[in-house]
């Protein structure tokens, strides 16, 4: 790099680039069970340390330890494992489908499945997520049919968004999942507004904001924090720190100057930092924050420390900007492997049963895909038409759009 001698602009750089041998030695990882679990009505000033540590439950011996343990029964944890496996299996299949030209684009949640899956498990009907494109785990966990997701991915005639949206930008009001925008960060402050409405109406429904590490740089992130702090509505604000924002590492958004969680401290928000690959820890912290909201104690900011194992999207090739084997050294492990290890250590599960479940899930996902593909894929089969493009622009189609629709149908040979 040939910097002109006199310039001294600080441009943060990740420690490792392609060709380097990556390590995560600089990362300070507290022992599982080390962080205390304060009462939900704690004063935010008294838990500032929790914004700078990593709350962890599962130990390296696969045991759940410390004050945050035991938020879930074995049965519930097993359901969680299944949710994450279904999500990962679906992602892998749809990634392949994109390569085969059946959809235009795909984004997977590989490596960060625990965050959305475990969080959703702590929510109740009536609550509303304002997600980003990497929280399909919320939908899987809330029971949104996989075929509906696939119909949208394939933009076929059963696509609930009628061909209008990119595949990953789901919406399901019924499942507490707000329509995803392609524009980053916009939803974060909307979640706060939704929660303010809950407060105005005297309800205890919780609004949940989601944002990626990179997107915390947007103004809407800061708008979300100040509104949350000012009005103290029942919301939980989630930052998924998966270390990367396309090619820029979390340091460009200043995750290494101070933790993302600690950005809530200046607003007086209780702010927690949690191991995002620890299903039990994510669930326990989510439950704590949701209980606070439900008890009208105000918002909570949570940072999930995880790792984006795959490419940003099917348009991206991370080997151009980070070491190929960086994921292998990620010190917080794999969320599925860890929860599986925990259940096996509890004696309620085994490698054999896991293998059997994996093959059942593979069959289930394949069947959903067959069903969806039989209806149509991006370029083949039964597809949404021009009319779907013109409807819902307004409640009632104004005359100029009716005219354009007629012209469009004529062009398509349907008029």
């Amino acid at each position, binding site marked *: 790099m040939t910097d002109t001698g006199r310039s001294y602009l600080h441009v943060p750089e990740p420690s490792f680039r392609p060709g380097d041998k990556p390590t995560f030695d600089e990362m300070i990882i507290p022992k599982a069970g080390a962080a205390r679990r304060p009462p939900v009505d704690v004063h935010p000033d008294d838990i500032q340390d929790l914004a700078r540590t990593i709350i962890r439950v599962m130990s390296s011996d696969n045991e759940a330890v410390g004050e945050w343990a035991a938020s879930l029964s074995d049965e519930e944890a097993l359901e969680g494992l299944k949710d994450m496996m279904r999500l990962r299996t679906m992602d892998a299949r749809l990634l392949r489908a994109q390569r085969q030209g059946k959809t235009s684009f795909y984004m997977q949640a590989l490596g960060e499945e625990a965050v959305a899956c475990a969080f959703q498990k702590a929510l109740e009907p009536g609550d509303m997520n304002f997600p980003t494109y990497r929280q399909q785990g919320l939908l899987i966990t809330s029971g949104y049919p996989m075929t509906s997701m696939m119909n949208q991915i394939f*933009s076929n005639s059963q*696509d609930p968004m009628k061909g209008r949206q*990119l595949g990953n930008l789901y919406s399901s009001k019924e499942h507490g999942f707000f329509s995803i*925008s392609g*524009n980053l960060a916009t939803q974060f402050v909307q979640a706060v507004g939704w929660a303010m409405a809950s407060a105005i109406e005297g309800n205890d429904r919780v609004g949940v904001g989601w944002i990626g590490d990179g997107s915390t*740089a947007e103004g809407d992130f800061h708008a979300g924090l100040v509104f949350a702090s000012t009005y103290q509505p029942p919301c939980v604000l989630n930052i998924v720190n998966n270390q990367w924002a396309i*090619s820029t590492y979390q340091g460009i958004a200043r995750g290494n100057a101070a933790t993302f969680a600690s950005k809530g401290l200046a607003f007086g928000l209780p702010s927690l930092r949690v191991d995002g690959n620890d299903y039990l820890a994510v669930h326990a912290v989510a439950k704590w924050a949701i209980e606070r909201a439900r008890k009208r104690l105000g918002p909570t900011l949570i940072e999930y420390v995880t790792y984006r194992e795959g490419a940003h999207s099917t348009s991206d090739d991370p080997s151009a900007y980070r070491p190929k084997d960086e994921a292998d050294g990620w010190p917080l492990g794999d969320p599925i492997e860890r929860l599986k290890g925990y259940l096996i250590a509890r004696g309620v599960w085994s490698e054999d049963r896991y293998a059997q479940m994996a093959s059942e899930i593979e069959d289930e996902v394949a069947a959903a895909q067959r069903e969806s593909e039989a209806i149509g894929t991006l370029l083949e089969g039964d597809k949404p*038409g021009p009319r*779907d493009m013109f409807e819902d622009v307004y409640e009632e189609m104004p005359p100029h759009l009716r005219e*354009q629709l007629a012209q469009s149908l004529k062009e398509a040979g349907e008029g």
Partner: protein
Amino acid sequence: MAKKTMIEAIRDAHHIAMEADEKVVVFGEDVGYFGGVFRCTAGLQEKFGKARCFDAPICEGGIVGAAIGMAAYGLRPCIEIQFADYAYPAYDQIVSEAARLRHRSGGQFTAPMVIRMPTGGGIFGGQTHSQSPEALFAHVSGLKTVIPSTPYDAKGLLLASIEDNDPVIFLEPKRLYNGPFDGEHDKSIVPWSKHDDAEVPDGHYTVPLGKAKIVREGKDVTILAYGTMVHVAKKTAEDQGIDAEVIDLRTLVPLDTETIAQSVQKTGRCVVVHEATRTCGYGAELVSIVNELCFWALEAPVERVTGWDTPYPHSQEWDYFPGPKRLGAALNQVMEA
């Protein structure tokens, strides 16, 4: 002369501008180490160092605001907004600040800067990777708005934009990055290497702002187009066997009204075409100008061919896109009138 894609031509312009003037700095989301999601700034950081080409936080308002500060200091920022669809968080900085700085400070402070952004659809990008917001910029006094349609023009216009002392919105039709696109979406892509306008001279040259280009001469009707639609217009005219004169506007503000008026006065007919939504689109301005300058020469009402007044759809992309069919119908209409 070497043939280049539009991406390579844009990259080349950056290299030349940065070499010629150390005041030129380049930044934006993913533009530094990685060289941009469309690779338009690849190699710049390696060659010119991190202080002159760097990654920005995901904050478009910050990117444009910081560039204004740098420009006021005396630098010449050439910044990238990853997709034109993401310019809205920066709209206040663009409209209220960059565009008006010279005027409101009595000329004390200026904002010589280029805001590059990929524009337009045709890549199944859905509503947030496909928009054509040129009218939102052309409407603002103090901004210049430029849209190239070939690698040759992209390089020459970008160099002219960087050297210009006013803020320039530089819209890059992403569907043209790797090859000219004539609207025949089910045919395979023709790469730029097969196209004459991909001949890009090596060194420095500029294509002046405010000068349109007649890309196809004709006697019977004038088609006013820019960006992707230039190629659609040429192809449609050829396929329909209509002796159309196709004008590539290249710069929307300032607009080359002389070339437009001369052509329409000659042909007596005019079709205006753009991919953006119809209502209050830039086409409305063009129709007004043609009416103002050429009313007595017109033999038919001016036709407008545009995208529909809906968000840009994902799967109905080709129902939305004003392709050869829609343009052909409009051409027939003005020819029959």
